[in-house]
């Protein structure tokens, strides 16, 4: 089945130690998104890639970076995690950024910062 896969499902890191979260998709979608979700709040968009074009949300901290080496994979890098970065990180994809397009989410990676 076509799907969005996130690894690992749970990640523990230390304060200030860089961490990378992974997302892959078999949907062949052009757009990939990263969201941060805290404590059952609404997901907050961090950034997205439309093909190779990177689009950062204005309020996304510089501590968060992303890479998309090919259509299938997208990575979220947190350069120096703080305690406030502990959250669920959700990857999503859509075939295009159009108004009608549905975003399909992966299962998420829960990040714990010690």
């Amino acid at each position, binding site marked *: 089945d076509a799907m969005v896969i996130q690894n690992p499902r749970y990640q523990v890191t230390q304060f200030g130690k860089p961490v990378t979260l992974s997302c892959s998709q078999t949907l062949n979608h052009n757009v990939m998104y990263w969201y941060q979700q805290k404590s059952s709040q609404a*997901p907050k*968009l961090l950034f997205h890639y439309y093909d190779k074009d990177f689009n950062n949300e204005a309020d996304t901290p510089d501590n968060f970076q992303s890479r998309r080496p090919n259509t299938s994979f997208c990575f979220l890098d947190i350069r120096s995690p703080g305690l406030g970065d502990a959250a669920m990180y959700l990857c999503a994809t859509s075939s295009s*950024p159009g108004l009608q397009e549905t975003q399909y*989410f992966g*299962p998420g990676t829960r990040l714990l910062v010690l």
Partner: protein
Amino acid sequence: AQSVAQPEDQVNVAEGNPLTVKCTYSVSGNPYLFWYVQYPNRGLQFLLKYITGDNLVKGSYGFEAEFNKSQTSFHLKKPSALVSDSALYFCAVREATGFQKLVFGTGTRLLVSP
């Protein structure tokens, strides 16, 4: 700017009874509305969307939503609730300008009791 409001933090319903999860929207132009469900420690699952056409939209797992333009509402409904429907439900609207990102409501927790 586009926005959605979910006025209830939690909805309680007995198994077998009909359920309604409320959502109202504020948009400039045509609304593009979505419902997602999130089970504990999981990503968001797409339920249904309204783009245009019939005001009653049918989706996954027996859910449906009624679009009401005069009341600017898009309530999620199910004729007979299951205990397994207990989850967090998010309403979302697509922004009509710029990147057209999804804007989520604050979420409603549905608790279905046996």
